[in-house]
């Protein structure tokens, strides 16, 4: 059945949770590409056959024409599925830049196709260049601020830090009540996390 493999790719996108990526399915992907090229060569040979019989390609409606039409339409469907697969994955990759940051953790990187890794790098660079042109960091402050002070739990040993007019000893697993602006730089680096009861 033509187009079945391509719909497998789409089912994969559909069944994965929002914002999550499955491993790039290069097996099915390559199979669909092969199918496309098959369709194309069948299509070309049917057209050639009609031309050899001196039939007008535009207007003749014989079994070869319909065969060619089926190959053409199947190819189009495969193309649409492939593009949708790549495009939807690219949208998830875009969201990673906002949610995770400019560097992806290893377990996500494993799931990406080579071109997707490049896409992420280039896309990150475009965002970075916009941020530096505007001189506002858009990757912080993702949630509306509720209090000027937040409670934080320190994840890694940072040591003595002077904040404002007093110094705080930031040892691992200690809880502190800090000003949001002071804590934000540590939170964004992953050295602290907001302590929500």
């Amino acid at each position, binding site marked *: 059945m033509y187009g079945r493999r391509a719909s497998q790719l789409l089912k994969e996108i559909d069944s994965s949770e929002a914002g999550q990526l499955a491993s790039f399915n290069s097996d099915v992907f390559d199979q669909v590409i092969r199918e496309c090229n098959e369709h194309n060569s069948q299509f070309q040979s049917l057209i050639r056959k009609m031309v050899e019989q001196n039939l007008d390609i535009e207007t003749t409606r014989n079994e070869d024409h319909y065969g060619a039409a089926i190959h053409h339409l199947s190819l189009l469907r495969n193309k649409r599925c492939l593009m949708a697969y790549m495009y939807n994955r690219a949208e998830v990759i875009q969201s990673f830049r906002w949610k995770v940051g400019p560097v992806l953790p290893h377990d996500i990187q494993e799931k990406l196709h080579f071109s997707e890794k490049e896409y992420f790098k280039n896309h990150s660079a475009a965002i970075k260049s916009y941020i530096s042109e*505007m001189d506002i960091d858009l990757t912080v402050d993702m949630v509306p601020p509720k209090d*000027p002070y937040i409670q934080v739990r320190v994840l890694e040993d940072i040591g003595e830090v002077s904040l404002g007019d007093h110094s705080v000893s930031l040892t691992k697993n200690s809880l502190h009540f800090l000003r949001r602006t002071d804590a934000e730089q540590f939170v964004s680096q992953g050295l602290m996390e907001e302590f929500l009861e």
Partner: protein
Amino acid sequence: MSSWDDDETAASAAEAATTDVELLKRAWRNEKAAPEVLRFDSPLVSRVREQIQLLEETLDDFADSGVDDLVVSLYQMDLDRTLFLLRSYLRLRLQKIEKYTMHISRSDDLLSRLSPQERRFAKSCAEIMEKHLEQSVLSKLPYGYDSVTRQSLSSTEDDMVPEPQLDTFVFCKTKSDVGAFQLDDIGEEVVDLVADDLYVLRYKSIKGLVEGGRIDLI
């Protein structure tokens, strides 16, 4: 006395900030609810950034002169919230540009709604996406089927570009009396829009009113 002057400038800065912040909040809400990217309000954004800077300087002065902690935290809250609004406004726009990058790059009208930096970003986004799709899919497809925007050579128009759904329903509130308003092209549906009323309408019909500032999205 210098402390009175500081207080006055701080107070007037806070007052002026309230009005502009209200405008920014409105622009932010509209942007959040609209399916397409709206016109970039460049003067508003510049003013807000100036006021943010003023607030930051005021806070630094407070820190030096030992003003009451409660007052400091109030100003800090105000600053935080304004900064959040500004960042979120810019972020919402960027994310819309990311999503509809090819559609935006082809439309002069949409491009004109972006700030110059956003235009540059949109252009890079479109190029990067095209390159990615070409590299991974299109270069392996047979000749005649390898266009990014068209399905094949036999397509009469660009039929592979995702576009925002302009006829989604949005909640909106009128600011002043608009009167009888035609909702669609044929003239069949006419709605009487009274001031300060809440409506749920298709975005496409009220697009012009939103641009003119006569109706707000919620």
